[in-house]
């Protein structure tokens, strides 16, 4: 059966604000700035934009406010997804569907958050009442999304012998890449000893396993493949998208999530999403030149390498060793430094980096001749992904 999604749309503009710990700006201000830059980068005029898409966890601004603030003459498509890490690739896919189906011509997609100085989505700084699933978690001190990730990571260690040094290799690679990225907040390279010496937060996770809470916004512009060919930059085509998960998925509660019913905490959403994603694109994992993998924890990189099929199940730990995921390695991962070095703009910053790589605009961190990029979003039992090509 043919697909009507593949290669029909392209990302033609990217924009971002400064990434910091205290922006001093509203989420509307940050969104305006990122969207304006992305639209300028595309070569379109602001008045050509007729769709606005975003996602948030009640921590940001609606697409309507941004459309009004930008002064769009008409809003034909708007979508405000509620959700966490799974959402960034999914909302780019939402925009692509709207364009491919003719509901809008040019859609700007943004994520804006004061994730450090404002609402911190990982659960630190806020203490919701233990209702719903949280009534079985919070009374026991399971109070953060970090804790939920730790349950998966420990299970992986039990099943497959994954070690702290594997987690360390991920954060070392992220810092190495971030050192080459002017957007990155932490640009100092670190050693394995630095990693092992960093303080334990929720064993098996140390401080250097955990993403940087960040203030900032970024945005991309999605248009049709036809229009893309006459704009400023080489188009980055959206080859394929997939989202979701397997049986007994969990949502994101106000503070954390238990993921208590998932059949196996050794598996994640990517096991279910990957066949649809690669099937739609008509390619195999070995065809991917650069992977921007949602890395709220170091561990997420490891399980995604397995569940997307870059290595066998259980071999994600050994796979990240020996520089294999660093620039010049077998599969460069998170060339911008990811959440661990650049900052946590909830996964849309991974899409921005993928576009830069495919345009050949990544400077010192450019993956030579990158043609196909994977960009993902993680909610552990649910998630989403895009395959992009130049």
């Amino acid at each position, binding site marked *: 059966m043919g697909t009507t999604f593949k290669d029909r749309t392209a990302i033609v503009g990217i924009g971002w604000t400064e990434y910091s710990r205290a922006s001093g700006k509203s989420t509307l201000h940050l969104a305006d700035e990122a969207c304006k830059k992305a639209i300028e980068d595309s070569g379109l005029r602001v008045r050509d934009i007729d769709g606005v898409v975003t996602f948030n966890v009640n921590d940001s601004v609606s697409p309507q406010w941004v459309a009004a603030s930008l002064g769009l003459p008409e809003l034909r498509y708007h979508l405000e997804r509620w959700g966490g890490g799974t959402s960034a690739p999914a909302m780019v896919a939402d925009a692509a569907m709207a364009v491919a189906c003719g509901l809008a011509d040019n859609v700007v997609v943004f994520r804006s958050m004061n994730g450090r100085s404002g609402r911190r989505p990982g659960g630190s700084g806020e203490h919701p009442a233990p*209702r719903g699933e949280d009534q079985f978690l919070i009374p026991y*001190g399971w109070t953060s999304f970090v804790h939920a990730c730790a349950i998966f990571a420990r299970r992986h260690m039990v099943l497959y012998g994954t070690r702290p040094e594997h987690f360390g290799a991920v954060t070392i690679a992220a810092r190495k890449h971030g050192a080459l990225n002017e957007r990155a907040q932490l640009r100092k390279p670190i050693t394995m000893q630095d990693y092992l010496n960093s303080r334990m937060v929720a064993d098996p996770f140390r401080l250097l396993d955990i993403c940087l809470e960040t203030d900032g916004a970024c945005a991309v512009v999605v248009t049709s493949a036809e229009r893309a060919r006459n704009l400023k930059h080489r188009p980055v085509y959206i080859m394929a998208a997939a989202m979701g998960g397997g049986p007994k998925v969990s949502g994101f509660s106000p503070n954390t999530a238990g993921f208590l*019913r998932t059949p196996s905490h050794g598996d994640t959403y990517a096991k279910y999403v990957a066949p649809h994603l690669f099937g739609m694109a008509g390619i195999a994992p070995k065809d991917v030149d650069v992977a921007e993998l949602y890395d709220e924890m170091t561990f997420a990189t490891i399980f995604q390498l397995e569940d997307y099929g870059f290595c066998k199940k259980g071999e994600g730990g050994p796979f990240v060793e020996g520089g294999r995921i660093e620039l010049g390695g077998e599969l460069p991962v998170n060339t911008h430094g990811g959440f661990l070095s650049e900052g946590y703009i909830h996964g849309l910053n991974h899409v921005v980096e993928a576009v830069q790589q495919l345009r050949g605009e990544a400077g010192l961190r450019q993956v030579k001749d990158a043609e196909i990029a994977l960009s993902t979003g993680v909610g552990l039992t649910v998630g989403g992904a895009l395959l992009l090509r130049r």
Partner: protein
Amino acid sequence: MADYRKPLPIPDQYTQGYWDAARRHELVMQWCPHCGVYMFPPDPMCPGCNSLDREWKKVGGRGRVYSWFVVHYATHPDFAGDVPYAVVLVQLDEQEDLRVPGNIVGCRPEDIEAGMKVEVVFEDVTPEFTLPRWRPSEE
């Protein structure tokens, strides 16, 4: 007991039976009378047969440690005095995917092992609430 300052569960119509049983020092699980599947946390519908009927069924209170973490830095201030403390996810003997979170007692965090046998114990933390916790078991 009177000075217990940590967050307490806020039961709802789907979970009240669980906490009522805990006060009686019984561990109960939601159970589907049609297909015999246990589910935790409670859910309005049985995912096996889509029945909206559900019952509370007493379970043996024994299981094995499936996964765990040890908190060294508490994001919630009410737990700051407890670090390091462990939270375990216990797989109950009744069903492979029936897993309950809780704290472990009578075991140092560094001595927790995957697959170790545990049994439920009940701690009356306030006159209204009893929290099921877990301790190592020989059986």
